[in-house]
């Protein structure tokens, strides 16, 4: 190992992992200085609760991005799950939850199979499955938002409750975050996923079942998107085919801003947690500073491009298309 590679190690991966965390702390300090008393238990728990859906969605798409792919169908899958939940709660009660979540698993698996078996690039495969799913959601709901009525709300109340002062949504996202973290770090699937993202030919040559790993990753992405959709529907007491449409960009931005490279192999769920908090705080900060809410998309678009430009590993792509 020569000098340059040591320098690269410090300048590259290590600092890239730390920058988002530093940014998060800096943002928190700025807000605390601008509005003393922000960092109280109550506002922080509100911040976490408001970040929960975004984080769950971003955790799912982290799997796809870690492999060097992308999942553009998450907002559609989340919306479909919300529609299914709202539609089935009156008849099935609590059993509507697993049905909605399994729909996400099914469409995530479909994305993975289309991507892998038909050898379609993931952004097109998921754009297509996203369209399929949106069409189904529109069809099932007749293009309307479905309100979860009084009877159904009994079954969603637990999501909006709090246990020992901690909102249940925060607990759900914490459980999902920890499970995803452990799955990536300590299971065979997790290691193989990172290996595939780091270098697919090498992973393939080492005997890793690349296809299966990819399908599992996309299935996980779809399932977590559905979980996010269910939680969102419970919080808003409504399901709609466009419910999560505004969440695709922030979710991808959260992953990239957290320091996961779109070239794959570098990053993880912990980084996504930091990224999701940054996005949430920036959003609150913008309202606070008085930036027009309609400009939010513009800011996130610019942030996304900047974050990609910083985190991307250009040595891994021969031709940038």
């Amino acid at each position, binding site marked *: 190992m020569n000098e340059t590679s040591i320098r690269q190690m410090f300048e590259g991966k290590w600092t890239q992992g730390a920058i988002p965390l530093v940014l998060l702390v800096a943002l928190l300090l700025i807000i605390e200085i601008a509005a003393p008393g922000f960092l109280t238990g109550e506002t922080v728990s509100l911040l976490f609760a408001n970040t929960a859906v975004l984080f769950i969605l971003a955790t799912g798409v982290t799997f796809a991005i870690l492999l060097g792919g992308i999942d553009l169908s998450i907002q559609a899958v989340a919306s479909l799950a919300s529609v299914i939940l709202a539609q089935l709660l009156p008849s099935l009660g609590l059993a509507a939850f697993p049905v909605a979540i399994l729909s996400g698993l099914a469409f995530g698996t479909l994305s993975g199979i289309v991507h892998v078996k038909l050898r*379609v690039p993931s952004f097109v495969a998921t754009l*297509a499955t996203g369209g399929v799913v949106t*069409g189904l959601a529109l069809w099932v709901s*007749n293009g309307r938002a479905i309100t979860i009525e009084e009877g159904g709300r009994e079954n969603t109340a637990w999501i909006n409750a709090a246990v020992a002062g901690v909102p249940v949504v925060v607990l759900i996202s914490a459980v999902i975050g920890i499970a995803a973290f452990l799955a990536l770090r300590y299971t065979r699937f997790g290691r193989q996923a990172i290996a595939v993202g780091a270098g697919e030919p090498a992973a393939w040559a080492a005997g890793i079942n690349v296809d299966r790993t990819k399908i599992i990753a996309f299935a996980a992405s779809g399932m977590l998107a559905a979980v996010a959709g269910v939680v969102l529907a419970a919080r808003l007491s409504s399901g709609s085919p466009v419910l999560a449409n505004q969440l695709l960009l922030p979710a991808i931005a959260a992953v990239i801003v957290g320091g996961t490279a779109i070239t794959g192999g570098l990053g993880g769920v912990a980084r996504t947690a930091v990224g999701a908090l940054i996005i949430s705080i920036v959003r609150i900060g913008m309202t606070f500073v008085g930036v027009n809410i309609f400009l939010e998309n*513009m800011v996130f678009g610019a942030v996304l*491009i900047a974050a990609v430009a910083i985190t991307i590993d250009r040595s891994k792509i021969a*031709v940038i*298309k």
Partner: protein
Amino acid sequence: MTLIPGRIAAVFGGRRWRSLAPLAVLIVLCVLIAIANPNFIELRNLVRLANSAAVPLTLAMGLTFIILMGSIDLSVEGTLSVSAMVVVLLAANDANGNDYGWWAVVAAVVAGTAMGFVSGLIQTMLRIPSFMATLGMWFIGLGLSVYMLSGSAIRLNDASIRDLALHRFLGLPVAVWVAFGAFLLAAIIQYHTKLGRHILAIGGDEDVAKLSGVNVTRVRITAFALAGFFFGVSGVLAAAQLGQSHAVIGDGRLFAAVTAVVVGGTALTGGEGGVVNTLIGVLIVTVLANGMILLGISPYIQQTVQGLMIIAAVALSLDRVRLRIVK
């Protein structure tokens, strides 16, 4: 499993069969729908068909050049809504006192071109893949237009611009002729200019193109700006057709445009296909949408059908020999 589509294609003569397949699909589709509902071939319906193909055709012309390079432009909806916003706010409208007439149209097309130009700069100068660069530009454009419109719908009152959709020339709305003009322009650019050939060369093999002396960066930026130009024109057409601009004017347009290009037979890997393919692709998508309405199928299921069409078309057309890694 991965070999089956390729094998089927080989049975039918590989490449040559594939290049004729979209046309065959279009004809079969037309015949089937006409049998199921004879109203389909009524003149009134054909005019309606041409009218609803105008915006997607213009959009897809721009997108074709990008896909021919092996890239993608996801900013279709953002650029279209910026252009529609510019034309509505600068021409006579019900929100401010502007009345610049056709200068508003020029400004809108310039705005679209500028958006594309920026996408091209971001992709080549920051060296990030086009799907990420244009994903960012999509939401930048959307945010900008929604902000400028203050989140509401603003009516377009300029009669001469509205005439694009309302006035008829030889039985067809002017917008259809504009779209046809866009097609001719795109065909000339692709088949008779250096830029067109260079775009194809880059899509075929970027390294070889570079070694042959093609200025890849310049061609890429020009191609994105050109796509922005077409998106800008279609933004004007969309605003004229709707008579207003609002936050969701672009909704679903990206999806329809990608479907049209891909179904027409232009390969996502680049270097194969072209604007004539896209014309057929747009007709397939529009005929299918029209046919589904005539057959009484819920319009909500349209996106589902389009999504399945993308998957089928891409699966059948990808030249898999060239693809070792698919990300």
